[in-house]
């Protein structure tokens, strides 16, 4: 986790809020550093984490996690982390016939399927196990990323249904958190992605949006992060609080600064 981002979001692993949906989105840049932040944040907060990693392999997150101070292998071994490696499972589900429904069953289906098997997997992974539990604080679901599901043939409605079920189970029933990443296609007209992004934006409590700079590539400022706090259940008469910072990603951390105040410029 990045201490500077914790300060901006005003949270620490000890006193994070529960029952929230956080939406990460990136436009014209790579927002995966946010996923690494939240993964290490929740592991340090002693939560039980279910990570649906659809876009990269386990060792990728593991190596970056080590730079951020968490050991994913050990977390997986002691049961704190349940890791669904999308790429490896896709090969299994594609080449071998499965008896029971596999979380990525939709890859074998011709028409737009649904994500029920994936939801069952998540529910199974995060359900509280008896009283002799190791004492995890609360469950967290992390998905990286949802746009992959759209590109593999699922409709935006199916993905929204999946998130709805996950929120009902994880946020409301188990008092945990859900963090998802969606790519914003920007000026490319991708209707399904826009539906998904708008739908999730209305449901989430916190939106972190990483954008590339409008002026193009810069070596010292990698992008701009917009933070938006929302209250989806309450009336919208109150103004949502929003902050914007620019950031630079380094080898082991990310530094944030106000717009135009990059150390390279001053």
């Amino acid at each position, binding site marked *: 986790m990045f201490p500077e981002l914790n300060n901006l979001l005003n949270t620490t692993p000890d006193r994070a809020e529960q029952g929230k949906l956080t939406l990460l989105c990136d436009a014209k840049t790579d927002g995966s550093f946010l996923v690494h932040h939240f993964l290490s944040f929740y592991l340090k907060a002693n939560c039980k984490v279910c990570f649906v990693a659809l876009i990269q392999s386990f060792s990728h997150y593991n*190596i*970056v996690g*080590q730079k951020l101070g968490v050991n994913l292998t050990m977390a997986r071994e002691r049961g704190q982390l349940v890791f669904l490696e999308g790429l*490896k499972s896709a090969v299994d589900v594609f080449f071998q016939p499965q008896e029971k429904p596999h979380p990525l069953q939709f890859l*074998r289906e011709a028409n737009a399927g649904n994500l029920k098997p994936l939801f069952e997997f998540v529910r199974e992974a995060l359900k509280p196990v008896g009283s002799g539990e190791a004492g995890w604080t609360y469950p967290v679901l992390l998905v990286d990323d949802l746009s*992959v599901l759209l590109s593999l*043939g699922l409709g935006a409605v199916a993905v929204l249904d999946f998130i709805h079920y996950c929120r009902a189970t994880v946020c409301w029933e188990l008092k945990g958190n859900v963090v998802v990443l969606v790519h914003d*296609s920007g000026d490319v007209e*991708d209707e399904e992605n826009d539906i998904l992004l708008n739908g999730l934006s209305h449901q989430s409590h916190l939106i972190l949006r990483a954008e590339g700079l409008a002026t193009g590539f810069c070596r010292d400022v990698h992008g701009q992060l917009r933070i938006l706090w929302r209250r989806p259940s309450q009336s919208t008469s109150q103004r949502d609080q929003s902050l914007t910072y620019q950031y630079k990603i*380094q080898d082991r951390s990310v530094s944030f600064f106000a717009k135009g105040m990059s150390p390279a410029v001053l």
Partner: protein
Amino acid sequence: MAAVATCGGDAGSAGSAVATASKSNVTSFQRRGPRASGTNDSGPRLVSITGTRPSVRNGQLLVSTGLPALDQLLGGGLAVGTVLLIEEDKYNIYSSLLFKYFLAEGIVNGHTLLVASANEDPANILQELPAPLLDDNCKKEFDEDVYNRKTPESNIKMKIAWRYQLLPKMEIGPVSSSRFGHYYDASKRIPQELIEASKWHGFFLPEKIPSTLKVEPCSLTHGYIKLLQFIQNIIYEEGFDGSNPQKKQKNILRIGIQNLGSPLWGDDICCTENGDSSHSLTKFLYVLRGLLRTSLSVCIITMPTHLIQNKAVIAHITNLSDIVVGLESFIGSERETNPLYKDYHGLIHIRQIPRLNNLVCDESDVKDLGFKLKRKLFTIEVDSISL
């Protein structure tokens, strides 16, 4: 080595991570930093494979694309287990040349090749590969080339545009130290004995028998299903995924797929905007990447993205690939006769570089790059006109 230095803090855990990983399936994303003789670790010593080298940044295993200038732009080379997607130029001239450089590099390094095409017999593709330039002959010729380039410019100090002198020059001479990255003569064919000494598998779509895989008929286009089965078969049988531990020498499998997405593969993505098999290509890429991540292989795909009707699909394909390079040639466009662009044959766009095992990636500072094909050299240079 820098790789060992960065993991100095947790060398113990890195060693144990490699030890546990080697018991399970071979993934290519282990930390294969060269174990310097000074460190005494308990991890297994990984035998180095010809034609590969570890990345300076994170120890990731890299292979050469066949073009040292492109290797430099990609941060040292192509990471094993990743997909390099080349967006073809309009007449598929330079993209097929990059494709051939990649395969020729595989032959020179002794890697196994897998060539897949729907319109050209792989045996013919291999016959047309460029001949490698071996160090003793080429050094003289490079000096000539460099001298010819330097003479008109060396006497003229750019007094007005003094900043241009500070621009990084892309290295065009042969790399002296190791055999990573070779140069090829595009005008000569590769010697027949090199092809015969190499191990290669060809997939020519019109010749393949129907598949026996029980996948629901419309989930993926038939051609893609056959190709995935073929690739998975080769990976499994030849042990690239670590399934035959008694194999003595590890090797890399270089997969080359030509014109993926064109109608010859049975895909209508280039013909209509919302066809029946609109997600066939993305599913194929996803499963292919899954195969690559769990084996010692690397893949190059050329795709005619300029023909794809639905632009959102291109964004999906970019997100599902690791490295995306776009080629734009000036042939037939008004830039061909533009005197500003007379030095170049086209522009090369590095659209995406992956951040593997890292928060940052080796993005080059320079975004305007032009390429030109001389007889012996495919050079990539900073397009100083657009600065």
